[in-house]
């Protein structure tokens, strides 16, 4: 692997990780909202 690929990966891996976490948090919150509505409760 050349340096360009390694350094590119080193910088871009962090926004990629952030994107993964963002998707996870939004999906989980959507499920929580649906569950709260189904049980006639508030989300908070």
């Amino acid at each position: 692997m050349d340096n360009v690929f390694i350094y590119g990966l080193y910088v871009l891996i962090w926004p990629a990780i952030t994107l993964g976490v963002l998707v996870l948090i939004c999906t989980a919150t959507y499920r929580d909202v649906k569950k709260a509505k189904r049980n006639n409760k508030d989300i908070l």
Partner: protein
Amino acid sequence: MKTESLFQFSSLTIILLLLAFYGGTYLLSLLIKKDKETTSGFMVAGHGVGFGMGAASMTATWIWAASFYAAATSGYKYGVSGPIHYGFWGALMILFIYPFGMRFRELAPDGHTLGELIHARHGSSSQLILAISNIMGSLISLMVNFTAAGALVSVLSPLSFQTGVMIAGIGVLSYTLTSGFRASVFTDFAQLVALMAIGIIIIPAVLFAMGGPEVMVSGLSNLTLEQQNFFSSEAFFQQGAPYFVAVLAYAIGNQTITQRLFAIDKTKIKATFVTATVGYAGIVIGLGMIGLMALTIGIEPLDGNMNNLIPQMVSTYLHPVFIALFFILVIGSLSSTADSDLSALSTIMMADVYGKNIAKGRVKPKTMMLIGRGTMIIATAAGLIFASFKLDILVMLVFVGALWGAIVFPVIASVFWNRVTNTAFTSAVIIGLLLFCVARFELLPITGFTALFFEILASVGAAVVIGLMVFGFLGRKIGMIAAAITLVLMLVFATGFLRQYMVLLASLTAYGASTIVCVIVSLMGDEHFDFGLIKQRVGNYDKKTNVAPTSET
């Protein structure tokens, strides 16, 4: 390469951006407004915050305005490993706290603050040490975040520093005042989604706008050998290790974190904190990479101010729309931390000061709510005044950090070891703090035998840090083995060496001295505390009165 100035928005544009941000956040808070707020809802959202919102809130609270600036500065100063030595250690501490948080919840399922738990365990003096350190810590944090808002507004527009401070203070108070912690968590979610989305766009945008990884690699020759080294010892000893030790103390001592440990659905604590760890690392290390990019292409910080690095890079390479996005990113991060500080301060005044020391079991929920909201207003006013005067808070910040460092072992020992007494807790914190001050401010010449004495204390401190971390995940026996190995290694390698790094030496001294005193004084007493009492003594203020502790000294 030098950028002469940053892009300037008109006053109207900045005011509209701020109005959109704070107006939108306020409208969001109206969605969860209740006609009759309970004290439990106001302080810990009824102990039932779900995984998604909990992880978002934990991440948003841990990220403050300084996180981006400091990570970028670390990348610029220490090179390739710099962003890791800021973001990785900060993230690790979120992970470190959760095993202890689960223990807090097990002992005090109806708790709101760590101070309540310590009050039930030891009595008022230990609890007030925690409360006072938190009041100071949260006021400093409020002031720092309002200051960051003022600085950003004045750098990017013709508006004054004070205007930025005032808008941020009033904006944060407006959406937090009615629903307290519930509003803080709910708006944290929206703020985190915005700041993550912006971070995801800005980091690759800057990289490719400056020419891509090829340009970065060709600029590596601008770096010193130490800056090029991923395993740089200079980066570890100057940035990583002192930050690691400081932020560990912050994780244990700070009410904004404890409040979330008491608020999140107890079956979701682990998942929430693991997710927040990864999320924090992603966004903070990622933005820190912009500092590294600036270093490789030879950018010099405008006016020598490292805080200008990210806005300068965005301003140099991207369209003004991205600068507006960066502006929202910083305002979002500082607001999410500021609203958590307001919630933390109000909860400490409600539970620790009014609930435990004034009402003493005869709590009136209405009065308690009034105290909570009053605290938010007074704290905001204090934060605005301190920020407007641009006070030098370095000494205060160092002092609070040391206080939290001295608290770590006594707090954790108090919730696992039934021999710890109130006297042991209090004396450990006071002596740990005093010895820290001697080392940090070099009140004695740190040479010869004195330096060796502090290095031995610091070696114990390092053993405590590693031992506690291992203990949290793998249990007491392996934790003790890890501490013993660390102690031997430190005594062999750190004596005669650590005196070169006074900040690190002093911080570890606070841990080591407080641990030694806490253990010795506890063993001198004959307390055998029944942990089951804590559950009886820490209660829900909306339902019943609490049983007062009997172990006051």
